[in-house]
């Protein structure tokens, strides 16, 4: 049976290939052979084409068989089976998986049928941070957190750590924005007997154009949007045209939030920025308040599909999983830590007592 997946193996010794963060080339960890990304790309392009064709054939066959199976059609569409080209085991993954590793032999595995047509990303930001750096960054993230339970750090071990390329939409837009602001200017006069405050109010209309470049919006449903926006920004100068070689050794999903759905979030952020930008031009007043949402019209715009590197670290405390994510390029770690309630209580009590003593001393001397 033809392989339905492709393992990136060393062209010299046949060992699994992994892309090392920060490297320009793909290096075989076993024989040390260095291979150009382009070379690997071209070599496996034919294999991928063959594998994709084989997968298409298999899916057609599998779908037919599934008609009489207990799986419902919706479930079957989500669950796809591939054959590991290294050990021959069947790998089951969801409909969005582009790259994974065999759960039996650990072999990094690409699923080329997922790269076809519109699904192929335009760009990829390669991993710069290693697994070891991710673990070290997480340990550092724990530092200086006064409410962190002692047991959490003492017994803590990272249960799972996965490097993953997350699909993102990058929006470019030239916009023409219009905003309305209510501004006021006050004048204070001392008449001797009273303080007279005269406040004049104005309506200020502003219109301007501006350009946004590559606003990122998470294209994956299963990745928490708050986490994904917290690990921003990425350094786009290191973004390169997409090549599957960079994904060797990492997990990857294709998008399941399409660009039309993602553009709503981009618009929200553009709107707020435009409002603030125009508000900065309302000068000479004591206070400025936006009257309503800023209206903007998009001119030239563009959307790019990119894969960005994220380390996902999972740990457990009192049977509750805690997930942290690290920007695989910049090393920014985000997450929420557990809180030791007794520590919180003690610190609040201490703050309360100190404040009461000082405040009483001050008030007693004044009153």
């Amino acid at each position, binding site marked *: 049976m033809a392989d339905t997946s492709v393992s990136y193996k060393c062209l010299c010794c046949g060992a699994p290939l992994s892309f090392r963060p920060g490297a320009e080339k793909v290096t075989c960890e076993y024989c040390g052979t260095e291979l150009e990304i382009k070379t690997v790309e071209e070599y496996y392009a034919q294999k991928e084409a063959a594998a994709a064709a084989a997968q298409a054939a298999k899916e057609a066959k599998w779908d037919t068989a599934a008609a009489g199976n207990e799986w419902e059609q919706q479930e079957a569409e989500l669950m796809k089976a591939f054959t590991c080209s290294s050990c021959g085991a069947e790998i089951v993954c969801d409909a969005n998986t582009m790259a994974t590793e065999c759960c039996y032999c650990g072999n990094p595995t690409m699923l080329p049928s997922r790269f076809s047509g519109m699904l192929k990303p335009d760009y990829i930001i390669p991993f710069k941070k290693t697994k070891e750096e991710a673990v070290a960054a997480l340990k550092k993230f724990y530092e200086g957190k006064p409410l962190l339970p002692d047991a959490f750090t003492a017994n803590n071990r990272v249960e799972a750590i996965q490097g993953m390329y997350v699909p993102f939409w990058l929006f470019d837009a030239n916009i023409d924005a219009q905003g309305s602001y209510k501004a006021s200017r006050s004048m204070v006069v001392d008449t001797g007997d009273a303080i007279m405050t005269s406040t004049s109010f104005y309506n200020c209309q502003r219109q301007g154009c501006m*350009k946004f*470049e590559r606003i990122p919006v998470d294209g994956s449903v299963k990745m928490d949007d708050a986490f994904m926006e917290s690990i921003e920004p990425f350094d786009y100068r290191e973004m390169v045209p997409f090549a599957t070689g960079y994904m060797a050794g990492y997990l990857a999903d294709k998008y399941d939030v399409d660009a039309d759905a993602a553009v709503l979030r*981009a618009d929200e952020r553009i709107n707020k920025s435009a409002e603030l*930008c125009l508000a900065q*031009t309302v000068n000479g007043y004591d206070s400025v308040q936006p009257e309503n949402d800023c209206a903007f019209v998009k001119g030239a715009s563009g959307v790019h599909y990119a894969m960005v590197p994220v380390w996902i670290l999972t740990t457990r405390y009192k049977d509750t999983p805690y997930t942290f994510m690290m920007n695989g390029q910049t090393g920014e770690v985000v997450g929420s830590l557990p809180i030791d309630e007794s520590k919180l209580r003690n610190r609040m009590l201490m703050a309360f007592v100190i404040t009461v003593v000082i405040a009483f001393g001050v008030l007693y001397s004044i009153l």
Partner: protein
Amino acid sequence: MKKLLIILTLVAALLLSAATALAATPSLVDKAHLLTASERAQVQAQLQTVEQKYSIRCAVVTMGSIGNAKPGIYANQLIDKVFNDGPNGNIVFLQVTDQRQWYISTDRKLKDVVVGIPGTEYISKAAVPYLKKGDEAGAYKTYAKRVDELMAYYQKHGKGWQPEKEFPWLAVVGALVAGVAVASAYKKSLIAAMSNVCREVSADAYLDQGSFNLENEHDTYLYTKVTSTPKPKQGHRGAGSVSTSSSDGGHGGGGGGY
């Protein structure tokens, strides 16, 4: 300097007139002629009773005018130059009718008896209301009575009378409120430090800063709102309030208007 000369001249005149009338300066000198003969006798008798009981000089002086002099300084001069022969101390109640001012001055000894504003207020809060009603004799008799009480208290306790301090409820409540506010704010900041997950509000990081171009700006005047906040009155102290502006190291007491 000019004021001081005026005061000294006035005090000297008072001293001379008193000396020609009596061998020792009487404890009641009614230069403003506010009292009748019988009232004068009653007040004089009450002042003498206090003076003999405690071996102090307890005087009352009324003046129609002291020019532009301050009543406090004038009263201090009376203590220093006229009423200075009390073995256990001297105190004088001065009333100036054209200024509608009063002042109680003591020497260093009685400063320990009539302690600060509370001690002066103990006398004035009882006596000054009589001045307002035009009952000067009642005011002076009340003054003598209150001096008697303060002296008795001093002899019994060995220290001047001080009002009992009320429990500082306001300070306690204020401190508790401040404590709750600070503890709540501290809790909020501690909890916030445990998570750095938050959604981005804007796309400022992706705005090409050089691309912004303001194309149109138009400001329209809408309306004006005027508010007036009255200033607190200054220099109009209440009739019952006491000023110790003339109190110094050698003199105690205080005064005010009526």
